[in-house]
C-alpha cells in the first residue's frame, strides 16, 4: 500500500522542505542525494516559505487512478519566491480566476484517496493568496 513510499516524503509534503547549498546558497526543491563528486553534506535541509506565483497552470478533466474523484482539478507549476519551481495542484479557486503571475501560498490538503483499505495521502497544494 505504498506506506513507506509516502512516509519517506513527509518533510517535503508537509513542510515544503528542500535543500540549500552550504557554499553557494543555491536552493532546490525537492531534496536530492548528493551526486558523485559532491560532498555528501554540502546540501543542507531548507524549508521554503510556501509563497510563490503561478508560472503556468492547466485544468485536468482526465485524471489518473486515485484522482478520478476530484476532477476536474487545476494543476500548476508554482515559482517559489526563493526561486525553484514546484509542480502541485491548486485549490480554493475557480478556473476563471487563475492567471500566470498570480500570487499563491502553500496549504496542506488531501492529495489522494487510495480506497477503503488504502491510505489518505496528504501534502502541499497552493491557493491564491487571501487578501
Amino acid at each position, binding site marked *: 500500500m505504498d506506506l513507506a513510499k509516502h512516509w519517506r*516524503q513527509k518533510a517535503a509534503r508537509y513542510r515544503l522542505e528542500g535543500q540549500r547549498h552550504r557554499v553557494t546558497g543555491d536552493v532546490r526543491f525537492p531534496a536530492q542525494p548528493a551526486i558523485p563528486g559532491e560532498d555528501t553534506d554540502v546540501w543542507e535541509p531548507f524549508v521554503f516559505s510556501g509563497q510563490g506565483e503561478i508560472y503556468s*497552470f492547466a485544468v*485536468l*478533466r482526465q485524471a489518473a487512478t486515485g484522482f478520478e474523484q476530484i476532477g476536474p482539478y487545476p*494543476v500548476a507549476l508554482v515559482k517559489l519566491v526563493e526561486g525553484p*519551481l*514546484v*509542480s502541485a495542484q491548486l485549490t480554493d479557486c475557480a478556473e476563471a480566476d487563475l492567471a*500566470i503571475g498570480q500570487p499563491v501560498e502553500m496549504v496542506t490538503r488531501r492529495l489522494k484517496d487510495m480506497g477503503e483499505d488504502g491510505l489518505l495521502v496528504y501534502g502541499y497544494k497552493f491557493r491564491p493568496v487571501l487578501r
Partner: protein
Amino acid sequence: MHTVFIIGTGTTPVAEHYTRTLTDLALEAFSAALQEVAPAVAPPDIGALYVANALGEALAGQSQLGAFLATATGLAGIEALRVEAAGASGGVALRQAAMAIMAGVHDLVAVIGVEKVTDKLDPEVEAGLALATDSDFEAEQGLTLTAQWALLMRRYMHEYGYMADAFAPFPVNAHANAASNPGALYRFAINADKYRKAGQVASPLNMLDCSSLADGAAVLLLASERRARELGLPTIQIAASALATDTHALHARRDLLWLDAVQQSATTALRQANLTHADIDVLELTDPHGIAAALALEASGFVERGTAPRHAADGGITPTGATPLATGGGYKARGDIGGASGVYQVVELVRQLRGTAGAAQVKDAQVAFAQCLGGVGATAVTHILVNTER
C-alpha cells in the same frame, strides 16, 4: 563500424483491437515484414529480436517481452530483449538493434514495437502514461503526461503571445494526412473551426489537440550493408542515430520551453550524417499535441524559438512545406501506440523514401528525420534515414 540498412517493414492498423492480444498484433506486423523480404530472408536468418514496449506491465500484464515474443514469432531460443523508455521505447530499441549491427555482433535483426492498451479504462491508462513523469513529485501530485504538455502550452502562449487556436494547424495537418492512411486510427479531416469548438481535456489542451492511445504493432528488419547487398535489398540506410536525456520533472529544468535532449540528439544526428536541416525532406516527431511538435521543431533547429505555430499556419508542415510532418497522421491521427510509436514513425518514413506514401507523399523524398520522445523529452532519440538508390 558497419553501416545499417532497413530491409523490411510491417505494421498492423492502429485501432482499438478488442478481439486481439499483444501476441496477435506482434505476429501480424512481423509476418507482414517477413513477407516484404521473402524469400530472401527467413526467420532463421534473424540473429536477435528487440521489442519496444512502454506499458507492458501497467496495461498488458506481461513482462519479459523479449523471450515472450521470440517464442510467439517462432524465433524461440534467439537473443531477445524488451526495451523501455516510455514513449521513446521504439526509437531506443531501433538504436539498440542498429548498434548490434554496427558493432558486428549481429548482421540481421528484428525490431518489434508493440503496445496493447485498450484492456484498461482511462484512469489506468492515464496512470500508465504518468509513469513517464516524476513519480513522487509530479504523478503523486495528480499530474499526468498530458498535464505536463498543457503546462508548457500555457507558458508558451504567455511568453510568445499566442492564443490556443494558433496550435490548430498541427492536428489539422495530421488529420488531413491520416485521411489517406488506411492504417490510421482517425481517417478523417478536421478544421480550425472544429478545433476552436472542441471540449477541454487539460486546458488549454482540447480534445482535438490530444492524441489517443491505441493498440498496434510495427516491425523493422535491419541488416548490415554487406548482408543487405547479398540479399539485394540495400535501399534505406540509417545514416545517424543519437540519444540524449533530460530530467523527468519539468520543474527541474532551467528553461522549460527548450527541450535540451531534443536539441542534443538532433544536433548529434545531423553531424553524424553530415547533413543540414535543409537536407531533410520529411519528418516524424513526437506530436501528441501541437505544443509537442512546436517545441521539437524549435529545439531540433528547424525553426526559431517561438515561431513554430506561425510556421505551421504558413503551411510549413504540410507535405509540400519546408518541414513535412506527420505524413501518416502523426501521434494525433495515426494514433499514439505508446512504445511502438517510434517504430511506426520509421515505417512511415521508409514509405516516404520508397515513394509509396500515397496522397501524403513528399515529392522526391530522399532524406528523413525520425525523432521520438519519452515523457516530455526526458529521453530523445533521433534517426536520420537516407534512400541510397534514388
